[in-house]
């Protein structure tokens, strides 16, 4: 651990404060629900105070029929297509969302909310518990993908959106898309789940457990009460992120990017410094992650993915989740994604076929691994554009402005 943190500059207190401030007073619109509108959780309890932070792009049409919900992945947030207030970096899906892009903000009213359990303004373990005036920490009940989706449905009710033209997302965002289609079929006209699965695999649960153990093994984690003690277990979370980041990339992509090249040196040092570029890169990934993410939130959101098994709620038959669905689906996977391999997408497609739903499915050739859904993949853009354009026509939405 000691070696790992060097030679990095520790996260400054100012950055820490900035990230923590986002949990309660984010740089986003928020909606707050009180005890009159409790959110019943799968854990068997109700949350009496729920805050949801969200961003919107584009404008709703008069009939409010052009709304698209974009669901973010594990460590994403609501800043899909604007500069991130903590990191200053572009939004995580600016490749796909924007004027004239496949998720065209001149055509669609795009909504993206921070998930329940997150740390960017929606109720999560770093939020203040109104009952105690202290951060929830581990007192927050464990949340599920379905809880996240139910919270999003409350947000849409608040925004006056009865029916979504489309729900789209990759990875954990894709799980939310599938849950939306199963829980609220009448509210979803089209669904675009990318690089995802209808259940989290044993291998993926195993990776998540490694990450959680890294967080909890950090002495500064303090049984989850670190915020009360005024510090943050950065080192454990950085290790968790490093391990996870490997799973987001393919062997080919790592090799193409770094190979066995050494970092700013001609010879190995015969020590445990970051000799290899790939080590230096991973350390950087870990360090930049801890500046924007709450360690407890990482525990909650990984747990939500682990618990996701859509078929389990439908007598073990995934097709039953989509029985009678009128939703149009477009499922996409990537050839080099070994975290959510094509077989996972194919299982979704087989279930949709068995339920008689309308589905397109394509496997996109890419060597970028799981992260491909966030990157420049022209084939994904063409497919998303074609699917959304034809769905928009079927939904009676006006054609895109000529460009």
């Amino acid at each position, binding site marked *: 651990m000691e070696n790992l943190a060097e030679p990095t500059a520790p996260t400054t207190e100012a950055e820490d404060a900035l990230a923590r401030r986002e949990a309660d007073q984010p740089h986003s619109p928020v909606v707050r629900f009180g005890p009159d509108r409790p959110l019943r959780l799968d854990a068997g309890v109700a949350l009496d105070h729920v805050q949801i932070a969200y961003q919107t792009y584009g404008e709703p049409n008069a009939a409010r029929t052009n709304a698209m919900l974009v669901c973010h992945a594990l460590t994403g947030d609501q800043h899909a297509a604007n500069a991130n207030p903590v990191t200053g970096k572009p939004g995580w899906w600016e490749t796909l969302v924007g004027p004239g892009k496949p998720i065209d903000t001149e055509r669609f009213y795009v909504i993206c909310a921070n998930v329940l359990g997150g740390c960017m303004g929606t109720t999560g373990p770093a939020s203040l518990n109104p009952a105690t005036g202290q951060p929830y920490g581990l007192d927050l009940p464990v949340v599920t993908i379905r809880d996240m989706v139910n919270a999003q449905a409350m947000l849409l009710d608040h925004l006056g959106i009865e029916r979504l033209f489309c729900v789209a997302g990759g990875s954990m965002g894709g799980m939310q898309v599938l849950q939306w289609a199963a829980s609220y079929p009448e509210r979803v006209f089209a669904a675009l789940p990318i690089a995802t699965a209808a259940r989290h695999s044993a291998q993926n649960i195993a990776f998540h457990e490694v990450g959680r153990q890294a967080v909890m093994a950090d002495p500064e984690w303090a049984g989850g009460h670190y915020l009360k003690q005024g510090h943050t277990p950065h080192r454990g979370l950085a290790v968790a992120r490093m391990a996870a980041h490997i799973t987001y990339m393919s062997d080919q992509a790592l090799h193409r990017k770094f190979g066995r090249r050494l970092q700013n040196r001609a010879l190995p040092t015969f020590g445990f410094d970051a000799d290899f570029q790939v080590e230096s890169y991973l350390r950087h990934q870990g360090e930049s992650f801890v500046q924007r993410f709450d360690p407890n939130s990482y525990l909650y959101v990984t747990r939500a993915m682990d618990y996701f098994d859509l078929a389990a709620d439908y007598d073990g038959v995934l097709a039953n989740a989509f029985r009678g669905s009128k939703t*149009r689906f*477009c499922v996409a996977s990537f050839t080099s994604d070994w975290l959510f391999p094509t077989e996972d997408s*194919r299982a979704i*497609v*087989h279930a949709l*076929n*068995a339920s*008689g739903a*309308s*589905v*397109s*499915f*394509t*496997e*996109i*050739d890419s060597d970028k691994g799981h992260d491909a859904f966030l990157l420049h993949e022209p*084939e994904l853009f*063409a*497919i998303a*554009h*074609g*699917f959304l*354009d*034809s*769905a928009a*026509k079927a939904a009676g939405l006006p054609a895109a402005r000529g460009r």
Partner: protein
Amino acid sequence: MAVREAVQDEPAVRFSSVRVDLMVIADMVAPRSRVLDVGSGDGALLDLLATTRGCDARGIELSREGVNAGVARGLSVVQGDADVDLAHYPDDAFDYVILSQTLQATRRPRWVMEQMLRIGRRAIVSFPNFGHWRSRFDLLIYGRMPITDNMPYSWYDTPNIHFCTIRDFVALVEVLDARMEKAVALDSSGHPVRFNMPWWVWNLLGEQAVFLLSRND
């Protein structure tokens, strides 16, 4: 043989760019029906059925390029292998299941045909006729496997592993105990062979054939 149909010389809709067998197939499909095209290629038939027949047309295609081209055009296509993935569709899911110029490339033609008749209330199959006089001529005179516009590959790099003749196909239909509702043979210029000719003439003059089948319930 009443099933063999006199086809109008001019199909209802004519697209100069569309293969003639696709037009014959489209003419067999009732408007606004649910259709699955197995081996949908670039989606030409799906497009034709959706635009001219108002069908809910879906495709299954093996090649990634074909699928991506189709989905990017807004068609409903899944990437999959007919030899495996047809098993996942429920009974009677479609009004028609179509296999155009693909039967000869399947690993299990009989199984594929059985699945088509299970999934769809009707099946439409078009295939190149290996019994066409040109094929026989190439074999008989030159002693070489035939290479034609419909069968453009050399034997060593062809995806076509299960060629059959019209008579062979009719025998399979009997084995499957399916009902032949319509049959059309097209000559090398794409014109239907006259319907009152005997089978052996069809088998000689038909460069390709299109069959409309249903279950003998």
